[in-house]
């Protein structure tokens, strides 16, 4: 059976023609928008989050993303690890450990602690006078071996008389050493 060839001009006209619009549609759209405003952006955002959608992920960036999340979480959780504050290696999981420094000096007007944890900077960690002549400060320290000294009144460097001595008086003064638990 032979068919007539299609009238292409008519086909194009029909495809280009706008579909019929429901006269009530504009009103429905306005009602919908008002409904969204009434629900608020929180509800709308929640709906957006719950809406199913197709996501395409390439394996390499996805694995890299997961690795980044793990690294960031590890760094953040370092500050939340258990701490003992006592000297001695390998006794707790790694993390920053609150470590108390204390000096008794009745004559001092200002006491600071300097060490490898603050770049030996006398302005970094000043001790507080907790009672007359008693100076104290808690400093979060990484696990490991730390060398330190006290600086009294900005000029007199003294070791901690109760701590282990740190060999190394190349600069003409003595230091102390402490080991913070949890180190490698």
């Amino acid at each position, binding site marked *: 059976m032979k068919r007539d060839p299609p009238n292409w001009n008519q086909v194009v006209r029909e495809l280009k023609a706008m579909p019929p619009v429901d006269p009530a549609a504009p009103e429905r759209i306005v009602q919908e928008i008002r409904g969204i405003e009434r629900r608020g952006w929180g509800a709308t955002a929640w709906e957006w989050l719950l809406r199913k959608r197709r996501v395409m*992920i*390439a394996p*390499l*960036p*996805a694995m*890299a*993303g997961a*690795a*980044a999340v793990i*690294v*960031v979480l590890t*760094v953040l959780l370092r500050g939340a690890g258990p701490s003992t504050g006592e*000297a*001695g*290696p*390998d*006794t707790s999981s790694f993390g920053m450990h609150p470590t108390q420094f204390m000096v008794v000096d009745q004559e001092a007007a200002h006491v600071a602690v*300097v060490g*490898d944890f603050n*770049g*030996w*900077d*006398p302005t970094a960690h000043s001790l507080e006078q907790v009672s007359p002549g008693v100076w104290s400060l808690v400093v979060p320290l990484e696990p*490991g*071996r730390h*060398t330190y000294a006290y600086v009294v009144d900005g000029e007199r*460097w003294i070791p901690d008389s*109760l701590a*282990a*001595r*740190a*060999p*190394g008086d*190349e*600069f*003409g*003064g003595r*230091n102390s*050493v402490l*080991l913070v638990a949890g*180190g*490698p």
Partner: protein
Amino acid sequence: MNGFKAVTALALLLPSWLAAQEPSLEGRLDPATAAAVLAIVDSARADGIPTRPLLNKALEGAGRGAHPERILWAVRGLAGRLETARAVLGYQSTEPELVAGAGALYAGVPPASLAELREAVPGASVALPLVVLADMVDRGVPTDAATTVLVSLARAGVDHAAYDALRLSVAQDIRAGAAPAAAAYTRARGLLLEAGRVPQQRPPP
């Protein structure tokens, strides 16, 4: 995909950034001294030696107002001792162990003593025993006596509190006038008895 590219870059760069957290010499040393220190640090890094202790030694010198030549001398000396400590204690040693070993060497402890201590506890950290060893030698205990005592305690597997108790009691005895070697032997024997590692001497029948 730009977000994924950023995350990928973060994942690749963050570990190296974390590893690169070293103290800065900027503003603490004059440019020439800082450059000389960094040259020593770069050389140490190439040899796989920890660099943070070297930078901290330079910063300590700066904080104490030491002469630049003195600072360079101290940093070079520490680099050499860290290298010796690593050679003796082993390439798997941790930074605290190496720094403690370098400190013991500075105090006059011979490298053979470090090796002896490492052999006594092959699977455990020797950072604390080395700190106590250096402390005792610094207080006048002869190196052979201090080594014997620390190796005995390490072999006995005493806990960390025992090392600290030994350090404190020996220091106290020496301040009170005891002979350093006698103080070390006596206190160590007491700790070993307490730990049940030395048989009680029975009086003759």
